[in-house]
Structure formats: C-alpha cells, structure tokens
C-alpha cells in the first residue's frame, strides 16, 4: 500500500435529495481512497447510488435542495462545498468524467473534434490549430483509425466503440489526474467492451491517470480494478482489494452477488443461486442493515442500526455484524470457476 497521501480521499460522503417534504438519503457514509495510478471499482445494482456518488464528487448535482455532506479531499483540496467557480476549473482539467452511453453523451450538432478542442481551449490558452493537433494525437493514442479525418465527423457517424474512444480522448485531453468512468462499457458489445477495458488499463501507463470505474458488472471489476467498493442501497457493503473481495467476501451481499453470476465454464448449476426480493427504495430503507430483508444470515443484531464497516483483512472492510460476532462467511475459494 503506498504511503503517500491518496489522490482522492472520500470520508462519510452523504447525499440526500428532498422528496415529499423530507430529505431522502440516497448515498450514506461512503468512504474510499484512490491512490495515484490506481483503478478502483465501484459496483452495485442499478439505483444503488453509484452515479450519484460520482456526480457529487464532480459537483455536478444541481437539483434544488440537494444536500451533500462529508468530505472528499482531492490532492488535499476539499471538493464538498467548493464554490462552482473553482470546481469548474478542476472539472475537465484535473478530474474528468466519461459516461455510460457514448451515443447521447456528445452534443449531436458539433463534430467530435470540435468538442474535444472546446474542452482543451476551455482550460488552456491554445490556438485552434494547436488544440486540433492535440485532439488528433489523442484520438490516435486511443486507437482511432484515421484520427484527423475522424475528428471531422459528427457523433452519429461513428460506431459505439469509436464514440467511446473519442469520449475517453476528450476526458484525457487536459491530462487529468483522476478519471471517473461511469459505466463506460455497459452500452457496448463484449468485443468492443474488451477493447475499451484494455485501453483503460493502458491509460495508467501512458497518461498516468487514476480511474474510478463505476460498473455493475463483477466481471469488469475482476478484470480491471485493483480495489473494489461494493455499494448496496446507497451504503457501503464491502471494500477491499479486488482479489480478497472475490475470494473471501465478508458481506453476504457480495457473496450472493458473486454467486448469482452464471458461470461460463465449469459445472452448470441446475438453478442459479439468486437473491430473492429487490433492494429497498431509498425512502424506505430499513433502520438496520439495508440487506437484512434479503439476507439469509439476518438476525436480531442486524436490525437496530446499520452495521458499521469493520476490518476483516488487510485493507478489507465489511459492513456486517457477522465477522465481529465471530461467525464470518466461509471463503469462496480462489477460483470457483475452472478454466476450460
């Protein structure tokens, strides 16, 4: 574990939105560290608050009445409560973001090149010409064929994979220290997804970017992230080195999530071990563990208050009462799925 202070240190981040006259907590007490050159995965089901967390870090939530508390130190500067004017200077230059659907994430009426140039020129005093030269180089770095020509095309004229590459090129255009990728491959085909994931893995070396990778695909996390944070219903369920989380999950939700993935190799189970029920709505989250209504291990100590994260291994924490009560989950084993 690197000794120097993390690039991004998030502590107790909470986000609540007003609804029907009261504040509904969407994200509660999320903490995470991201070190330089690291890829950290943020996983969770749809609606678990992954995007809200990312948007809160970027200061991009502008719903009226939203309340963001806690702390997020980026290179020692507090992002929570930072005035928009200062945030704007960070956004795009020091922290960049890419989004799920490359189809709709570009403004349809401008060329790809124009939009990348725009970001460069928003942060650096560069001539149109110099900006375009950098754009073309970035596109080439991202493996876009014929980049000079591609820069002159409109978003709808590119395939999903090319658009996502252009999106990444745009995000990297001012060499940000941190890249937040919100489900960058969810809308893409597996073969294209593999291309993009390979590109993201390479970025650390070529552009020195740390990445917060948001996804709901455990496979993507296993393939790309050094550490993982599992969110359930807006709360941290588990966090730790990816390998430990996959081999020795400390939270029943993590374990159940991993079990629910149909295996591509090995014996085919008759039925998949699905988790019954659905996650609670943010407005009626239980007072205790949010997973209790679906958890096979739930008992009375789970119910009064949300269990705090407890350390269960090197760098690994789980928000569950089981480890502290001396009845931790059995390890899943280093590989439950054998290669053909």
């Amino acid at each position, binding site marked *: 574990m690197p000794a120097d202070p993390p690039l991004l240190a998030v502590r107790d981040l909470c986000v609540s939105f007003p609804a029907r006259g009261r504040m509904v907590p969407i994200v509660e007490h999320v903490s995470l560290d991201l070190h330089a050159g690291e890829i950290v995965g943020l996983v969770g*089901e*749809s609606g678990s608050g992954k995007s809200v967390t990312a948007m809160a870090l970027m200061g991009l939530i502008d719903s009226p009445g939203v309340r963001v508390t806690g702390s997020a130190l980026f290179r020692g500067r507090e992002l929570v409560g930072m005035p928009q004017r200062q945030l704007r200077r960070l956004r795009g230059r020091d922290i960049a973001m890419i989004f799920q659907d490359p189809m709709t994430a570009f403004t349809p009426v401008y060329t790809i090149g124009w939009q990348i140039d725009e970001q460069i020129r928003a942060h650096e005093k560069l001539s149109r010409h110099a900006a375009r030269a950098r754009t073309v180089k970035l596109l080439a770095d991202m493996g876009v064929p014929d980049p000079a020509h591609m820069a002159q095309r409109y978003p709808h004229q590119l*395939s*999903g*994979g*090319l658009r996502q590459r252009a999106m990444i090129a745009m995000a990297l255009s001012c060499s940000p220290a941190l890249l937040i990728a919100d489900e960058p491959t969810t809308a893409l*085909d*597996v*073969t*294209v*997804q*593999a*291309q993009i*994931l*390979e590109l993201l*893995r390479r970025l650390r070396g070529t552009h020195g970017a740390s990445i917060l990778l948001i996804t*709901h*695909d*455990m*496979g*993507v*996390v*296993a*393939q790309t992230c050094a550490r993982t944070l599992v969110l359930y219903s807006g709360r941290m369920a588990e966090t730790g080195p*990816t*390998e430990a989380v*996959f*081999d020795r999950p400390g939270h029943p939700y993590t374990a*159940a*999530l*991993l079990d*629910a*993935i*149909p*295996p*591509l*190799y090995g014996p*085919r*189970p*008759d*039925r*998949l*071990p*699905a*988790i*019954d029920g*659905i996650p609670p709505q943010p407005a009626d989250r239980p007072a205790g563990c949010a997973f209790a209504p679906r958890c096979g291990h739930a008992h009375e100590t789970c119910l009064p208050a949300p269990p705090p994260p407890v350390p269960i291994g090197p760098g690994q924490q789980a928000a569950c009462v089981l480890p502290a009560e001396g009845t931790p989950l059995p390890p899943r084993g280093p*590989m439950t*799925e054998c*290669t*053909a």
Partner: protein
Amino acid sequence: MTLTPLLELRDLRKTYRLPRGRVLRAVDGLSLRVLPGETLGLVGESGCGKSTLGRCMLRLADPSSGQILFEGRDITTLPERRLRALRPRMQMVFQDSSAALNPRRRIGDLLAEPLRVHPAPDGRRRPASVIAARLSELMDLVGLPVQALERYPHEFSGGQRQRINIARALALTPRLVVADEPVSALDVSVQAQIVNLFADLRRELGLTYVFIAHDLAVVRQISSRVAVMYLGAIVELGETDGVLHHPAHPYTTALTAAVPRAVVGHPHAPVLRGDAPSPTAPRTGCRFHARCPQAQARCAQEEPALHTLRPGHAVACHFPLPPGP
C-alpha cells in the same frame, strides 16, 4: 433425426430498403431448426440481426424470401387472419419490460386481453370466471402476488415487469416462446431470478424457447444448443458447451475470450480488433474475413457454408479450429 422440428427456417432472408437505394441485409440466408422441448440460445453482437430473426420466426415481421415452417406447416405467406389461429401457440417476450406494457392499464387488464381476444381451444370465448382463474394461475406461475393484478406497470420494478411480460406471453399456453434479450436490462441478482423462472417454466410447461441474448454466460445457463450469429448469418451452431468451450469458428473464439470473467487474475485474452462492418456493405467471401485473425486468401473469395464438423456441432468456416484439450 426423426423428430419434426417445432420451427424450421429455410434460407430465410430479411432485407430492409434504406434511402439512397442502399439495401441492408439483416438476415442473410439463414436455415435453422428448433426442436420441441429444446432451448436454442441465439448470441451475437449488436446489429447482427438477432431481433429481426426473432420477429421473422413468429411472422411479426415478414421475411423477404425463404420459408418458415411452424409445426411442420408453411406459414411464410399465411395471411394474418389465418395466422391468428396460430398466434396463441407462439409468443414473444421483449427486452424493454416497461416499453412493452401500456402504462395506463392495470396488470389484470393487460393479461386478460389475449384471453379475451383469442377464443379458447374449443373455439368459444372464455367466460370471465375462466379468465379470472387463469390470471391468478399465471401470477402464481411467475411468482407475483395476486394483488399485483390490480396495480399499474409503473408500480413494479424492472424484474417484476419482466415477470409480467412473461406471464402475458404464457397466458395462452404457447408451445414456442421467443425471448428477445429478456434479461439484458436487469441486474445480476434480478437476472438470476428471471433466468431461473424461465428454466422452471420450461420444466413445468414443456416449453420450447428461442432465447436471444448477448451475454454468453446467461445463454449457457439456459440453453441446450447455441447459435452464434454474425452479420445476419449463423456462423456456428451446436451443443452449448461444445460451442462455448471448444469453439471452431474464430469469431466464437473471440466472443468467448472477450467475456469479462468474474475471476481475478484471469489472463486478458487478445481482443478482436475493429468493429463489425456495416450490414449494408457489399460482401464477398467469408463475412468475418476482414477481422479474422486466421483469414487466408481463400476466405476473401469463397463464402464458407454451415457444415457439420462433428455430431451436434456445425460451423461456417473454411479453416475451423481444432477442439481444445
């Protein structure tokens, strides 16, 4: 095989005419048999024609040429009026669970509609009491409370809405269900519930599925056979694990290698370069040759036909890969 296929496609083609005289070949000369009781998984990348094929199978889209046989009977040109009698026996489940449900109607109404519209097998209309009994039976089948019948689609989660869609497809006790990406929009845990539901229903009702998905692991879980599609044609077809574990077609190899496995430290397979070519581009030779790492001179000229490689495994490639260890 002596078994009559439940559904048979012979050299099926579906072309779309685009502006400027371009022609898009969404399904391009495809033959396929679906046997009673089996689950045929259909995989392939976006735009390869899976949905178009699925709709053509049930005559929800009219093919441009070729033949469709359902229960041994040619339905390719059957007029819609006559087709109506067959509709109860072939149904479709769609991906987007919310778009397929009218938001202003109660679940009970939605499910009762096919029962009211189509006469019972004895040719008479179903009385209200029969319909009501069938509705609660359906709710039971897909694991929803009977009270759900009184509620509106927006009151349900994505997974529950997909259960409702399945219930609607099952209302008329079909034999064949074509499911077009029924779990693609769902989270892993909900996806597992729905995949299990499909498996349970098959066992209980003896259904035959054509299960379209792009997730290979999901397809493996549910299917007895798998067909891999590329640019409107089947490039590999066979027993599920034979195809997925010992692929003979270079495209299938690339597809299985690209699946991100939930195993830490799994080596990263070399990725397939480039994008699938446009389905409107004219093509010669093998439809995969522009991206194929194994391509040779012959591949650019001659189109490989789907031929049997070994029992229960067919491939459309001049140089099929040997079965792995």
